Structures are given as structure tokens and as C-alpha cells.
């Protein structure tokens, strides 16, 4: 291998592993009450010391059942809820400590796609204004024409007809609404997009289209996804690495193949065995045993 080729190779290797987000020991406790009137405070440890890294251009899936803390994890790292403790390193800064203009600037780089295509779009705003809102907040354009062009280009990228810009969300189907949500998330070309169960409210035939779109956008824009889902079929299809969470902790982390082909943790094994799959009869007895053991 020539020297130049070797350098090129190392360069690729490096960029593939480049960490763009680092979460360290993230915690979110909710106070639920006190022991007695003035006693010790009691907490629910919704997220209890979660750490992980996200690399450029990859999809990191977080799986687990409801209440395992996967949603709270991403909401804490996006500061939708203020986490109790931990660090979120984004561009060499602790995102959790940022304030004011710095926070606003950092937010440009990390966006979110929501689960519910109905409650995530303001029913009184037109599609144009919904998609354009992040741009409005950041004042990234100088003229109305620039804004219009940005919005229409983004609509085209997610496969929305430009004529729909003046319509309201209720005129669209679930899948199209999810496209609007995606357009809004990518309009500022962020490096990281958090997807919170983006397809679980959709019909199967539509779900496939949205997943394909997410993959397509990733290939085009080199976005990194944090992808939350309870559907392991979808996760296996889209994820590069997988984080399995249980009761606020990460119980197993690995590449997709490691997790799906050779799971180490008992909970991961149970999770994988419980997927109903066509053409594979499930062994129901083990679940009954697991339930009795609880």
C-alpha cells in the first residue's frame, strides 16, 4: 500500500470513529415524596448513570421496554427535562452547562423527531411555518426568498410536494406528518438527530417508507441518529450499534451483530426471544416461567 493510500485509509478509519457526542454518567431522579412529613426525600431513579458515545454518521439504537428510561435519557440529554447529574459533551463543551446564546447555538446541532405525528405539529400553523420555525428562531436567512428556498428544498429532501407548504397538519396522513416532522428536524442540517419511536405510531406499509427516508438522509448528510425503539425488527434494520436499557441502567452495549447474534445479558436474550416472527414458532413456556419468577 502506498504511503498516500495508507494515510487515506487511516483518515477514513479516524473519521468513522470520530465521537461527536459523549454522554457520561447521566442521571435523572424524580422526587416522588418523603418518608413522613419531614423525612428523607424519596426518588424514582428513572435514569441511573447512563454513559455512551455516539460516532459520526452512525445510528445508535436504544432499546428496552416502557419505563426503562430510554425516553428520559434522550429528553435529559436534550434538556427537555433538566437531568439530575452527568455530562453531555458536544463539540468539546458540556451541553448541560451551557446557557443563553451558547445553548441556542449548540441546539442547532442536535434535533429531535417525535413519536406522535399528531401532537408534534402545531395544528394552527401551516406546514411552511412548522418546517421553517427552527430557521426563524436562529435567523439563518437574510431575505424572505432565502427562507422560502430553504424550506422548499428541505421539503423536497423528505419527499413532500412543494404545493403542500400552505396547508395545515390535519390535512395529512400519519406518514406525511412524520415527513413534516423530519423536515423540521433537518432544516438546519444538524449533525445529530434523536428519533424517539419515530415509526411506532404508523401503519406497517407507511413505516417502511419513513425508515427508508431516514436511512437515505443519513447517507446524504452524514447525520448521526440516536434511535429509540421498542421494535427490535426495526432496530436490527437501521442500527449500527445497540444499547439495551433496563430499569434505568444500560445492561448491554454492542454492535448490532453482537447484540442480535450473540447476546450476553439475560434480559437481552429474553427481549430477543419475545419478538413474534413469521415462520418461527415461539417458545411460550419460558415467558410464563419468567413471569412466575418475578
Amino acid at each position, binding site marked *: 500500500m502506498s504511503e498516500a493510500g495508507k494515510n487515506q485509509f487511516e483518515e477514513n478509519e479516524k473519521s468513522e470513529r470520530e465521537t461527536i457526542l459523549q454522554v457520561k454518567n447521566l442521571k435523572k431522579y424524580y422526587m416522588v415524596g418523603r418518608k413522613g412529613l419531614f423525612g428523607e426525600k424519596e426518588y424514582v431513579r428513572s435514569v441511573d448513570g447512563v454513559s455512551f458515545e455516539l460516532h459520526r454518521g452512525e445510528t445508535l439504537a436504544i432499546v428496552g421496554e416502557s419505563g426503562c428510561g430510554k425516553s428520559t435519557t434522550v429528553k435529559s440529554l*436534550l434538556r*427537555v427535562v433538566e437531568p439530575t447529574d452527568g455530562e453531555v459533551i458536544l463539540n468539546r463543551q458540556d451541553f448541560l452547562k451551557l446557557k443563553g446564546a451558547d*445553548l*441556542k447555538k449548540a*441546539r*442547532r446541532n*442536535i*434535533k*429531535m423527531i*417525535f*413519536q*406522535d405525528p399528531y*401532537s*408534534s*405539529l*402545531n*395544528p*394552527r*400553523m401551516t406546514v411552511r411555518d*412548522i418546517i421553517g*420555525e*427552527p430557521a426563524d*428562531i*436562529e435567523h439563518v436567512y437574510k431575505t424572505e426568498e432565502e427562507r422560502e428556498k430553504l424550506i422548499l428544498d428541505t421539503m423536497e429532501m423528505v419527499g413532500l410536494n412543494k404545493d403542500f407548504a400552505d396547508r*395545515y397538519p*390535519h*390535512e395529512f396522513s400519519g406518514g406525511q406528518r412524520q415527513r413534516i*416532522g423530519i423536515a*423540521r428536524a433537518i432544516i438546519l442540517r444538524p449533525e445529530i438527530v434523536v428519533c424517539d419511536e419515530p415509526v411506532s405510531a404508523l401503519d406497517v406499509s407507511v413505516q417502511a417508507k419513513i425508515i427508508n427516508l431516514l436511512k437515505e438522509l443519513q447517507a446524504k448528510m452524514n447525520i448521526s441518529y440516536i434511535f429509540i425503539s421498542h421494535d427490535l425488527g426495526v432496530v436490527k434494520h437501521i442500527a449500527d450499534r445497540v444499547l439495551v436499557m433496563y430499569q434505568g441502567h444500560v445492561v448491554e452495549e454492542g454492535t448490532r451483530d453482537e447484540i442480535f447474534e450473540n447476546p450476553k445479558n439475560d434480559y437481552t436474550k429474553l427481549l430477543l426471544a419475545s419478538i413474534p416472527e413469521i415462520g418461527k414458532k415461539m417458545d411460550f413456556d419460558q415467558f410464563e416461567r419468567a413471569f412466575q419468577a418475578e
Partner: protein
Amino acid sequence: MRKKNYYSESLKLFWKNKLAVLSLLILIVLVISAIFAPVLTPYDPNKQVLADKLLFPSSKHPFGTDEFGRDILTRCLYGCRVSLSVGIVSQLIASVIGYFMGVCAGYFGKKTDDVISFLIQVFSSFPALLFAMALMYALGSGIMNLYLTLGFLSWANTARLIRGTVLQLKEQEYIQACRIDGGSNLRVILKHLFPNCIPMLIVSCTLGIPSAILTEASLSYLGLGVPSPTASWGSMISGAQTFIRTNTYYSLFPGIFIILTVIAFNTLGDGLRDVLDPKMRK
């Protein structure tokens, strides 16, 4: 598949409610006759013609005349100006205060919510009429003071309604989305919460008007409303009570105007709520 936007859709549903449309027509007629009262009648509402006092209804005076010989129809129409303007302006004031208080309570929560909720409680537990009387005593009678007093009295209802709505809206993901994009509180309140509260505001405003009109009538009846000789339905009834046995029509006509207006606003408000409130929609 193309559906129109929310308000034109609501309007279409609204036209199907015959009673509400009828109420709207009645109110439009009242508003027009209040505005064009000087053109519609040849009489001056306040000029005393003692020769013509206490006439029964006739072709010259369709509603008769009062103890000072003033045409009752004319005074009813001029009274309409007072009643409608008091109802509408006071409720607009109430809506502004109520929206601001309700949004602050619902959106910011915690201490702000505690304080405002307490204020709402306090204002809803006052006997409204007594409070209005006290305020009018303090401020002195006059139409401006009526607007302020009645507006100040009824913001609590609106605030409670808006607070509840905002508490629900706050959980919507588009509010979270705006915050993730770095949107300020002001942006959330103006761009996201306000448009979604407008239907509630329209409804609470429409339903608040009749009670404001009634309170105004009561105050005027007690001599605390508009200063005489300005005509107002309440003060007319007050003047008529001496003659209730002999000249029943005198109190009857302003009474009919009050009832008609109140029922019309209530029906209209119910109709609007049916089409605007998402919970009431099928």
C-alpha cells in the same frame, strides 16, 4: 381529501346550527340599530316633553313614553349602545387580563401558578354585584368606569379556562419541539399557545358578555351605572318601577331587550363552543 383550515371548517359547521345563526342575526340587528339610532328615530332620547308624559304605545310612540315624555323606543335603542358596549368592552378587557394570567399560571407553573391560582380563587369567591357596587362607589359612575369594573371583575373565569387549556397544550410535543429548537418563552406563548387559545377566548368572551350586561343593568338600576339622563336598560327599569301597575309597558320593553340580548349571546356562545372547542367536536 383537501380540507380547509380550522376556522372555515368551523364556520361551515356553525351555519348548520339554526338557533345560533338566528342569535347572531338578532345581535347584528341590535348592533346596527344601536349605531344608527339617531337616524332610526326622530326623537332625542334625553329631551323632556312633559306634555307627552306616560303615553301608551301608539303609532307615534310605538313603545309609549316615560314620565318625562321621552320616547321609550328611542331610549331603548340608545340604551342598547350602553349595554352592548359595556358587555363587549368589559369582556375584551377581561380576556386580555385573563389570557395573560392564565398563560403565566399554566405555562410557568410552580410559584407563579400558586399565586395566580390563589388570585383566581379570591376573585371567584367575591359576590360579583357587591364588589362591582363597591368599585363603582369608589370610582364614581360613568361608562369608562363600568368597562373597567366589569372587566376587572370577570377575568378570573377566563384565566381559569386558559390555565387549564395551557396545561394541556404544554404536554403537546410541538411545544417541546420549539424548546429543543431554542425557542424562547415569549415565542412559545405568542406563536404556539395563543393561536391555540383563541377559540377558547372567543367562547369565554361571548359567554361572559350576557353576565356583564346583567350586572350593568343591575348597577344602573341601583343608580351606580351610567349617570342620568343617559339611557340604559337598567336605569329605565328602575325609573319604571313606580308605574309598574299603571304603565306596565314602560318596564316591559327594556326588560324584553335585556332578555333578548342575554339569550342571544348565550345561544351564540354555546353554538361557537360546539364548533370551536375541539373536545365538543365529533
